[in-house]
């Protein structure tokens, strides 16, 4: 059984935001209109964290893509009173929209702010609906949603492999953010396969996870940029 994980190379990432946009179109995330956006209720399954440190001219700016980390030890599943959010055998932390009662316990429990509550019904016209991804359902008001590691693509890949009468290959399953990243900064695959790219990169000396000390064991690893940042020193 695979254990799906992701590695984001911050040295390659150029902070363009394509992962955010491709995630949004792949997963039918409704675009926030002006009111919703100004209320701070925009939904980005893949968000971009920006951190500025220091003062001019000795300044560093970090820009990090942030999907759901699909933690090995997810704080969100533990607080869900109805088991609408759960971790499956392959390590994917899923969300069952129809079971969700909108209590938002999981939103508060997630230390990475990766979960989003639908405060408004989706603002989607009939024309837009026609051009949405038929593999992903549209969430209604009152439920929590988050990055699924494009789990619908896994289902498709499994169906395809079964139709071709073969085992599922690691390369059959890719996420939308990984596919469209212009700098190929995102790798995705089986962390348990010692020969996979993600597995090897996740053991690199450059690899780190966010908030390691709280014991959530995220399955999204970052590769550090090293000390190449900021203003130029002799």
């Amino acid at each position: 059984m695979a254990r799906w994980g992701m590695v984001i190379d911050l040295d390659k990432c150029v902070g363009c935001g394509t992962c955010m946009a491709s995630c949004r179109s792949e997963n039918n995330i409704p675009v926030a209109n002006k009111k919703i956006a100004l209320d701070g209720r925009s939904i980005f399954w893949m968000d971009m964290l920006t951190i500025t440190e220091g003062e001019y001219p000795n300044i560093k700016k970090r820009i990090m893509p942030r999907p759901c980390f699909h933690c090995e030890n997810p704080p969100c599943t533990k607080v869900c009173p109805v088991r609408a959010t759960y971790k499956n055998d392959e390590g994917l932390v899923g969300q069952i929209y129809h079971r969700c009662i909108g209590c938002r316990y999981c939103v508060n429990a997630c230390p990475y702010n990766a979960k989003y509550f639908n405060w408004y019904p989706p603002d989607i016209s009939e024309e837009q609906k026609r051009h949405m991804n038929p593999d992903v359902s549209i969430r209604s008001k009152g439920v929590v949603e988050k990055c699924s590691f494009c789990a619908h693509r896994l289902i498709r890949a499994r169906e395809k492999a079964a139709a071709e009468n073969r085992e599922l290959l690691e390369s059959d399953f890719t996420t939308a953010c990984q596919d469209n990243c212009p700098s190929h900064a995102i790798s995705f695959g089986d962390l348990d396969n010692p020969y996979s790219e993600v597995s090897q990169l996740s053991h690199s000396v450059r690899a780190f996870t966010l908030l390691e000390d709280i014991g959530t064991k995220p399955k999204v690893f970052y590769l550090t940029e090293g000390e190449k940042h900021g203003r130029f020193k002799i």
Partner: protein
Amino acid sequence: MERRKFLKSISIGGVSLSLLQLDALASAIGYHEEGPYNGPLLTSFVSTTCGACPGGCGMRVRKVDNIPVGIDGNPIHPVSRGGLCPVGISSLAFLIHPDRVKQPLLRTGPRGSNEFKPIPWEEAENILLEKLGKLKDAGIPEQMLFVDSRRSGPGFDLARKFTHDFGSPNFYHSENPNSSIAANIWGGKDIDFVYDLENARSMFCFGAPVFESGINPVYYASLRSRLSDQPEGKKGNFYIIDPRLSASAAKAERWVPIKPNTYGLLALGMLNLIIKEELYDADVVDRLCVGFDDKTDNRGRKIEGFKSMVLKTYIPSFVAEKTEVPVDQIITLARLFATSPGAIAIAGDVATRTIDGVHQTWAIMALNAITGRFNKPGGITNFNLNPFKTQTGGKLNARPLVSSNKVKYPFLGGNGEIESLPDRILSNSPYPIELMIFNNVNPIYDSPNSSRFRQALQNIPFSVAFSSLHNETTALADLILPDCTFLEKNDLVLPNSDFSHQVVGLTQPIVEPLYESRQADDVLLTIGRKALAGNWKKWDSYKSYIEEKADELYKAGTGSVFSDQFKISFDSLLAERGWRRTEFKDFSGFLKQVKKTGGWWDASQLRKRQQGRFTATIDKFYLDSKYLHSMFQGSKTKLIDLIDAAGLETGTNTEYMLGAYRDFKNEDEQSQYPLALYTMEPTTTRGDGGRLDGMADMIGHYEYIKWRSWVELNPETASALGLSDRQMVWVESASGKQKLILIINPGLIPEVAAIPAGIGKQGSFQFGENIVEFHSGEREIFTGMPAISETRVKIYA
């Protein structure tokens, strides 16, 4: 269907429920609520080329039951290599944009009142034919003027041919000509130079945050990824020399903060060090560079060479004072540039949008020249990226409204200069313009000269605008013709990127044209067949025209369709030995493969370059002003007058006009408007990105700003002005003022205000303000291109 109507339809139809009604039943009981679409879910992919900006990235559109539902990058496209920018990814939104022009519209109310009536296509074509016929009959065809949004390619050629066959020399397009004019000045001839970035390793980007506002950020991102993959010691580096710590600067190896508009000066400071420490390539300088050493003229007078001039004038302490880049950094940058293998200096678009844009580009290129980066793999070469034969139009009798001379002053960048048009139109010189056709251009929004354009449009007897979206320019047009979006078009596109090989991307329709839209090129062909002489009857549609162009590629027998890396290497190896693998039996097989993969490119050039073999070379680099002086021969304008008017210091003598530097002497203006205005160009505003609601939510994402414009200031500058973070402030220039939210950004050089461009576009999702309104009319001294980077502002609460 509403429930009541549905029940009624059942009662009328009795018990015979048709399939249609079953579908209605499904929708009435909310069957569609679950997913957006229910069908057999047959998936197909169409390869096409993104048209959201001129970058020309490859995309693969996923269709389910023939409905486009998603866009991915085309992994075998040589420029974008599977990547896309946020606007490209979101471009299905253009297809169903609420502001689409749905049918031909004829103006009924006064101009600008937005009162139009829908008319059928036949009537619209007849109106256009009648207007053209009148001009032709009166013998004044030159009074028709055509402005196109494209810069090259078969469609561009056809539009130009249309204008010229009609008898008008007035065909223009919008492009920044500063860099190409600079190339003609330093090269001594008409030069199409390209950076061979595929083989370069360290990019010194002057005024170019290349990962977001370069000509194709997706290409630079892919380049960065490939350079990072190299083993230790061969990894590439990006040095972003820019006033703002943008996402690009943050992600580059080094960010060098610099005072705006002093990029050329920094290059000259680096040259000083390189010459002093003898880090330049003496052999190349000897063969390539004109005017490097001191010499004696016929009369025995000693003429100072470029070397002495740079050593005397551009000493690092002086350059550090002007550019605000510390001396130690200038020294390190210079040494790094001269000694890193595969280092190349790139002049960004922002660097050239100044009154001395040509000077700045020249200085940055001089860095490349004397360190021997010319005619080398990973350097700069003279190469035409257009593989097509150019269409020539009929013989022209009249002079164009704006001169198109590239090698004599006044140079106006070939046909690239549309900024002079409104003045000529308003002054009716040399003749009036009766009919103006805009093909997907929006000068009323884009041009720093927009108020003059507005006046010109108000005064023109008749104007026609092809556009897929309603915009500021269509609002003033007399006839609006609904163009297709790029997702409904047939075309062959030459990507405008810094990729140094011939690439032709195929654009194919992923859906039939929506509403009553028709591709503008098809309309031109229809009009051409009816009204023009020449071979217009040869093509029954634009599709057949581009198929003829594709045949040209097939018959040329070079290059290959896009394919995976193994095939590319194999084909290049064969081509090198004079062989060619015949993949296709005939043209239809070739065309089928092009449609499947998304385009054609000449991969063999890559190998030639890697081995240092070039067909076209650059044989001169003028370091002195000899050639520049010759360009001014016969002109009433004196070179020295232009230099003086711009407040440029020529250093030691007039031999080195191009070595002039800015002294920012205009103290009066500086005290009134103390801050330089820096234009940010986020990736999310590329093309019409600023008109998508999806991008409105993302444009200020890194600054936590949504759906609005903002202004950034350094904390020190803000506190000196008594302003605080997220406060509403007035930003005022000599030509306009706007109220914006202030963001304190410690990653911005002091005394500079930064504002994003590309937003404030009229339409359903309008937000923010148009930065162009601040521009107060400075021009580049040689090309007349608006110098938007020269704008100065003041900020107050």
